[in-house]
């Protein structure tokens, strides 16, 4: 089977265009060019020069894709649902709920009537009430009562 013609001129043009790595060469010419390198010292020299530029090009590696960009891109995809805890509405609702709870605690502490204040404020009355039956658990002290 006749393969593509590979001579010094074609090899030079190939390397000048695609560089020194055989896997970058056109598929149809790769084998012929690889064989040609074995036979031609000039080809090997050409390859070495091209490799220097390849190595410099390989060094240039831009930054990868940041996570924020990935999220933005995914956020625009059809059917994409942002997780509940990442939605702004979730955070606004949570903040609102937390504020309402905090306000309730404050209002409760400041404005509620002191229902048990008088009894707690007067320890004697509180103790007496345990014996006169007015306390809910006053019976607990009735150990000496007649049968």
């Amino acid at each position: 089977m006749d393969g593509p013609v590979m001579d010094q001129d074609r090899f030079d043009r190939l390397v000048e265009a695609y560089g020194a790595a055989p896997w970058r060469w056109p598929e149809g010419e790769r084998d012929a060019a690889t064989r040609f390198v074995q036979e031609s010292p000039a080809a090997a020299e050409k390859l070495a020069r091209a490799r220097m530029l390849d190595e410099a090009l390989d060094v240039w590696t831009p930054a990868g894709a940041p996570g924020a960009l990935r999220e933005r891109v995914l956020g625009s995809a059809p059917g994409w649902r942002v997780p509940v805890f990442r939605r702004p509405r979730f955070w606004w609702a949570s903040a609102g709920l937390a504020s309402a709870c905090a306000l309730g605690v404050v209002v409760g502490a400041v404005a509620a009537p002191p229902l048990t204040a008088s009894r707690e404020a007067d320890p004697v009355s509180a103790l007496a009430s345990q014996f006169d039956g007015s306390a809910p658990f006053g019976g607990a002290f009735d150990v000496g009562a007649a049968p």
Partner: protein
Amino acid sequence: MKHPGPDPDEDLLIRVGRGEPAAARALVARKLPRLLSLARRMLGDQGEAEDVAQEVFLRTWRQAPTWRTGEAKLDSWMHRVALNLCYDRLRRRRENPTAEPPEQEDPGVAADLGLIRRQTGDAVASAMATLPARQRAAIVLCYYQELSNIEAAALMEVSIEAMESLLSRARRALRLALADEAVQE
């Protein structure tokens, strides 16, 4: 343009079109880094590159439900959209030369690299920025994106011979620019 062989991304795109989030996530994981690199190397600016990558995906999402199988490879189509968006931005830059020059490589990213590697990377970035847009595109597609010469030529709508000519001129210019840079240091 018809493409030979099955498209490895087609199933994924069809699932994206059906609104499957897992498919969208897989497609983004597979394509976003590649497209961002292409735009970054074409434009030399991270912010603009991110805008381009995002726009490519917006258009992909719009295409997904009506994608016609067997007509074009998704990867080629996305590359073509990205390349055209880059050309548009480069054209606008030419028309508006007061715009800020492209930023240099993020020093935070390069901090871990050795000093010589970092300098070489910066030198390559600067040399690439001096190439005409089509030569730059040829190098980016064939060398960095690792497309075959046939795919890259089809994408740029040129013959294989014209593609080889663009590549040769680009590599020659890069070699000269890098040699100049080395002499100046």
